[in-house]
């Protein structure tokens, strides 16, 4: 029952927003087609503008992931985290989730398939992936779109929040499951 309601909500969120925007626009006599195409023109420009920033960040992160350093960090962290009932499988997620969303989802998928639906590890991994956003990607895209190269404290803030999120996930999972 609850799941059905959730499905309906996730199916209808976007359509409802579109209905709202367009209907209010029509009601306020906004020339919908004209204004839409005028706004849409910028799409290409923005996408092209962010390419250099994306290349810098994504190439750096791809190299980082290919170097095997994440596995090495995992080996160092594993004995510490086993005190908190965190299995070594989850460690790559903690590191990768700030770097690459698709990679984090891939690792989570592997864990879920290997550990199975009843495992504590699956639940912990699910919470960690579900509660995160790819910090590096968001910074590259958002700052890249407006041409900002000095991030000041934005990256540090994002990473501290990611770290707090990981700690919270471990604690919450520990007490709830």
């Amino acid at each position, binding site marked *: 029952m609850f799941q059905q309601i959730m499905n309906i909500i996730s199916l209808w969120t976007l359509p409802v927003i579109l209905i709202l925007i367009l209907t209010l626009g029509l009601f306020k006599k906004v020339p919908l087609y004209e204004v839409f195409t005028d706004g849409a023109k910028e799409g290409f420009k923005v996408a092209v503008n962010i390419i250099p920033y994306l290349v810098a960040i994504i190439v750096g*992160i791809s190299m980082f992931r290919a170097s095997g350093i994440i596995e090495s960090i995992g080996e160092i962290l594993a004995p510490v985290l086993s005190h908190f009932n965190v299995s070594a499988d989850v460690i790559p997620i903690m590191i990768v989730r700030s770097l690459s969303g698709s990679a984090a989802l891939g690792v989570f998928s592997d864990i879920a398939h290997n550990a199975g639906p009843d495992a504590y590890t699956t639940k912990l991994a699910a919470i960690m992936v579900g509660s995160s956003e790819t910090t590096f990607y*968001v910074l590259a895209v958002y700052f890249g779109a407006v041409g900002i190269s000095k991030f000041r404290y*934005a990256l540090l803030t994002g990473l501290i929040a990611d770290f707090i999120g990981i700690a919270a996930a471990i604690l919450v999972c520990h007490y709830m499951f």
Partner: protein
Amino acid sequence: MNYIFYFLIIISIIAGAINGKLSDVVNAILTGAELSVKVAFSLIGIMAFWLGMMKIAKKSGLIEIIAKIIKPLTKRLFNEIPENSPAIGDIAMSFSANALGLANAATPIGIKAMEELQKQNIDKKSASNAMCMFLAMSTAGFQLIPATVISVLIGIGYKNPTEIIAPTLLVTTIAFLSAIAVAKIFQRFWTPQKAPEKIYLKVDRDFSESKISGKNSGGED
């Protein structure tokens, strides 16, 4: 960012050499560069769509209405932004899109918000406090329902995948609130932005102008 960029690449090379994965690291340059362009180009269509919709929402006054509703909150978070700035409405829309799990819409709308914030930024090359706050909110990834994770759980035959929603929401809320708190603390103690000396040159060159001329996209100065 200079140091991070440097260390990301240098550490990767050194670690790759130690782990005997240097060829993988070198190959990652090509795949990473290809991926970046793919990501950017895959954004074009959806970006155009949502920027178009946002323009309608702006003209009809919808964004203004939303901005007014959340004003008590944003006034405290974005104390350097004028109260009636269109950036506030865009930030609210971007946050709602993120919360509802509409990742496709959240990015274009977030960029729109960044453009509005950039108009009020005194140094166009460095991030304003308002931008850092907005990005703290965005990178914390506040989401009501983790839809992708749930679909993976359903895929492996998880009996009650919705039980993951409450703990995830709790964790994401903690991360979100601490992101805001950390940004607020840094805002107070970080070296403030300085306006570049040639400011009079920059004032007459804002976004609307570069849009009309269409030649320079405003970012290289």
